[in-house]
């Protein structure tokens, strides 16, 4: 269970938010650890990502080039890990379950700390935890920070941290 969540949350009356019952108790969310998800990284998906991002270095789409460069398979590129947790049928359920309208979502910040390279064929485990949540502008903006630990069979691959901003168009700022 969560042990590393901050105990001081700069919340400003989340339970008294302007939109009534749909507003989650932000302070109460901190420390929420989600069930780990396991994702197999597929070569085809990495090739698709390389194409979509204009990545022309052949190590990211050509297995022979990857091998020639000393990689055991196509490398998982630096920011691909962000979408790994989204590549599920219920991608945004954790947000909609919190009563959040996806149209009001903004991605504020994203960070990656890398521990080891990952490759196509790897089965990666993602463990998300909400590490911070607070409001600004009288509830007009809600900030949720989520940390996602990515491991491969017990080996740390990367630690991701994302700041999601939820705009509440009904809140008085």
């Amino acid at each position, binding site marked *: 269970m969560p042990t590393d969540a901050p105990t001081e949350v700069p919340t400003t009356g989340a339970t008294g938010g302007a939109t009534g019952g749909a507003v989650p108790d932000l302070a109460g969310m901190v420390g929420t650890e989600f069930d780990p998800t396991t994702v197999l990284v597929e070569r085809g998906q990495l090739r698709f990502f390389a194409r*979509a991002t204009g990545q022309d270095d052949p190590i990211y789409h050509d297995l022979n080039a990857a091998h020639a460069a000393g990689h055991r398979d196509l490398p998982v590129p630096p920011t691909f890990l962000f979408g790994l947790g989204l590549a599920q049928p219920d991608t945004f359920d954790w947000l909609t379950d919190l009563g959040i309208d996806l149209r009001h979502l903004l991605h504020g910040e994203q960070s990656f700390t890398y521990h080891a390279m990952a490759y196509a064929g790897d089965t990666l485990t993602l463990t998300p935890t909400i590490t911070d949540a607070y409001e600004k502008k009288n509830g007009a903006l809600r900030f949720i920070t989520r940390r996602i630990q990515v491991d491969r069979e017990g080996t740390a691959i990367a630690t991701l941290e994302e700041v999601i901003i939820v705009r509440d168009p009904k809140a008085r700022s």
Partner: protein
Amino acid sequence: MTPPPPQPGTVQVGTRLPDLAPAPISRTTLALFAGASGDHNPIHIDLDVARSAGLDDVFAHGMLSAAYLARMLTDWVPQSQIRSLRVRFAAITPVHGQPTCTGEVTALEEVDGESRARVALRVTLADGTVTLHGEAVVALG
């Protein structure tokens, strides 16, 4: 092609990475990136949804620009040299926006027995709008 790792003596504070200037962002790019990245939020690909949210149009995924920054980094160093990458999204990128990625070394440091460079990152549109600020830490040698 994957570059050789830059050696500690060859990188200085102020060293600029080669810019990366991808093509202007098309709707096709957004559709492909949605599928490829796994971020299917319709606000980036469905005009009806964007309008229902009071917007005039869809806008690019912030993580698309972050992926361009990562490309600039892996054009400069092998990916295994990248210790961390952090981005802050400052402005949305509209459809047809033309991002340019730039990076400049701001500090050299020794951490865990290795030489590292701290690189300030930025994505700027043709009209001068900065859409992303970021920082990467890269191992040298």
